[in-house]
């Protein structure tokens, strides 16, 4: 393990990707700590970052109301990038997670409306991976998969959604629609 005093970074040549990843995590934490001006910082999220992100995001929502969807998407992306960059590594994880999930949910709808199904699908995957298993995630995911002609996966997602919420009418409708498409897909 080498430590570079002026760049204040750790280094370990020829290490496996797991070790490299851990080292880069430590470096990131060190950089944030060194950059921190406020001596007695707490895991409380920085108020100004939250304000900036919020403003950016609200701007996006306003544009959505004005039906300027492309710009809305852009400003939401900006808001997310802002969150990715501004938030330090010790600000409360729960807050960061909720903030990110909330923004992504809006971004998903914007992508679906604008026909960017792959983007929407990956965001939905991310939401599921981070534990968001609500029915409307399944509805959107099934819809995106159908639009992407992945009927087998769409059926699996839809059925899983129905297992968790057996009475959901929209999922039932999507299942019927998907079964029809599957039949056509299989000739």
């Amino acid at each position, binding site marked *: 393990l080498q430590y570079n005093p002026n760049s204040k970074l750790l280094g370990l040549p020829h290490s496996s990707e797991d070790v490299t990843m851990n080292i880069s995590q430590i470096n990131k934490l060190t950089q944030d700590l060194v950059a921190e001006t406020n001596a007695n910082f707490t895991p409380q999220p920085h108020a100004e970052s939250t304000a900036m992100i919020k403003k950016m995001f609200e701007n996006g929502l306003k544009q959505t109301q004005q039906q300027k969807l492309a710009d809305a998407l852009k400003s939401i992306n900006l808001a997310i990038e802002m969150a990715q960059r501004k938030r330090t590594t010790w600000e409360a994880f729960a807050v960061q997670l909720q903030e990110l999930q909330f923004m992504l949910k809006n971004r998903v709808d914007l992508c679906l409306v604008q026909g960017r199904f792959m983007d929407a699908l990956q965001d939905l995957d991310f939401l599921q991976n981070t534990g968001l298993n609500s029915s409307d995630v399944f509805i959107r995911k099934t819809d995106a998969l159908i639009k992407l*002609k992945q009927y087998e996966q769409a059926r699996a997602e839809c*059925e899983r959604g129905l*297992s968790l919420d057996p009475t959901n009418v929209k999922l039932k409708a999507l299942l019927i629609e998907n079964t029809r498409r599957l039949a056509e897909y*299989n000739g």
Partner: protein
Amino acid sequence: QSYDYDEGSETWPFFVLAVLCVVLVPLTLMQAYEIIAAKDEDSSSQSSPLEKLSEKYTGDQVKRFRAKFAPKKSKLLARRNLVIIAGWCMVAFLINKIGSNGAIKDAATLLFDPYALLDISASSTDREIRSAYRKLSVKFHPDKLSKDLSADERTVLEEQYVMITKAYKALTDEITRENYLRYGHPDGPQATSHGIALPKFLVDSSASTLMVLGYIALLGFILPFFVSRWWSKTQSFTKKGIHARSASYFADRLFNFKPSQVVTTGLILNWLSHAAEFKLLYPDLTQETFESLLYDHINRRHSGELETAKLRIVAKTHALLFGLLDIATTFRNLEISTVAIDTFKSIVQATPLTSHSQILQLPNVDAKRFEEGSVDDIRTLGKLFTFEDEKIGKILGIEDETKLRETLSVAANIPHLKLLRAEFTVPGESVVTPLSTPHISVKVLVRSAKHKFFTPNKIPDELYKEEQDFDSLRDPFASLSNQPALPRTFAPHFPAKRSGCWCALVVLQKDGKVIQTPMLVDRLSFANLNKDFDKRTVKDLEKEFNPEEWEIGTIKIPFSQPAPDQKGDYYFRVIVKSTEYFGADLDFTLPMMVRE
């Protein structure tokens, strides 16, 4: 102190005979059983047109490889048989040596057997003994003997008479009987000789040092050698038949798996290329080389002088993938399990995993023509069969008539599973009761992509019935063995002949994780595939569809844990994925309704 040795070789033949029998009898039985089982195996598996076509399309490179590395057929000439034959010859030789050895014979006569002397059965009553004795003694009594006998004949007969009297006493008179039972002879303990069942020269003279050296060699070197070789072998291979180092590598990959990694067949191939088996086979090649060889195989690229190496490591991926699948399901990781099976398909069919894999796995397909040409994006065989034959030829870019026919025959014989009925059943119960041991019983229809589609309710209920007799209740999985074994797979690019299987995964819908290791389905009837029932010709289903003609396949998946103790509906996802063909999979959700 002075042992007498077995000079007349009276005892050591029995010792050697005993040792030989202890070794030979189980060996012979095992070999015989194996030969019978092998015959039975050949008869039970079903043949399929794909087998011949697979042979036809197998490149000569692969053919040469198979010839070189195929398991040796000649079971009969196997070393074990030679040992058995040699052993039995030894036994025969020893037996006739014992038979012909005088010393043993007279030693045998020393054995006193009153029943033999009175030639009555050992279970006769006193009355019979008495009458037999009376009859014999009348005959052999010295006074009764006729005069003209010679002296020594007379002594023999007198001796005989004495024996008979003794025998009679041994059976009736208390004291002598006591002696007989205790010492085996009425006259009390006979002179028994204790000796060493070895010829003298082995122990006493010069040969004794040889013997001692023999023992030292046996105990000091030979035994430790075999034990250490056996031990290192068992240590280095897991029960799933993969190398321990490979298994630990896979486990390490699974353990440190990050959600930010994307699971693709490429990732699985990368993991496979780290396998210890490959390193053992080709120590001089690097992991990157193995990975590129695997890619060469999937993209059907020739690897030059590493061609044989490529075929050998591809043949090894069979066991490795099953090992990886086992570990992935143990870590409950569904994504890696399914992608591992997809990798399996792409290795078996030497076709990369894309959305057109189902079509590209067919022989003679011109991929470029097909990619450009396919106007309405044909991705499944079912869709392909909605066109007429010559149209299919144009889509696939096949001019030659016979090739087209063969390609269509392969496409029509690739088995697709159609779900007819699935449920959790507890043998002997009508519902799944809390804490019972259910298993998943799936009724499938093995159909071809060419067949006209019909809904499951077209098949009457009685065809689903299974005999509910006692042994099927005791072991519901026994009835599966009535189904024939799977025929050979159409896999002309795979180095070894194979028949493959379906892997049945059970996933808990709540958290989307696998709950048990895969159940391998390798017995299903492909009889339906011989039907024509072409979707292009069959017009109205009513008249032409006759349910009796269709065979219904059964898949039973044991459930690894007891049913939950609370009533309610628990949703599971059952994935039955073939390791051989693209598109031959099943994936459905199954509720377990637990009721009182």
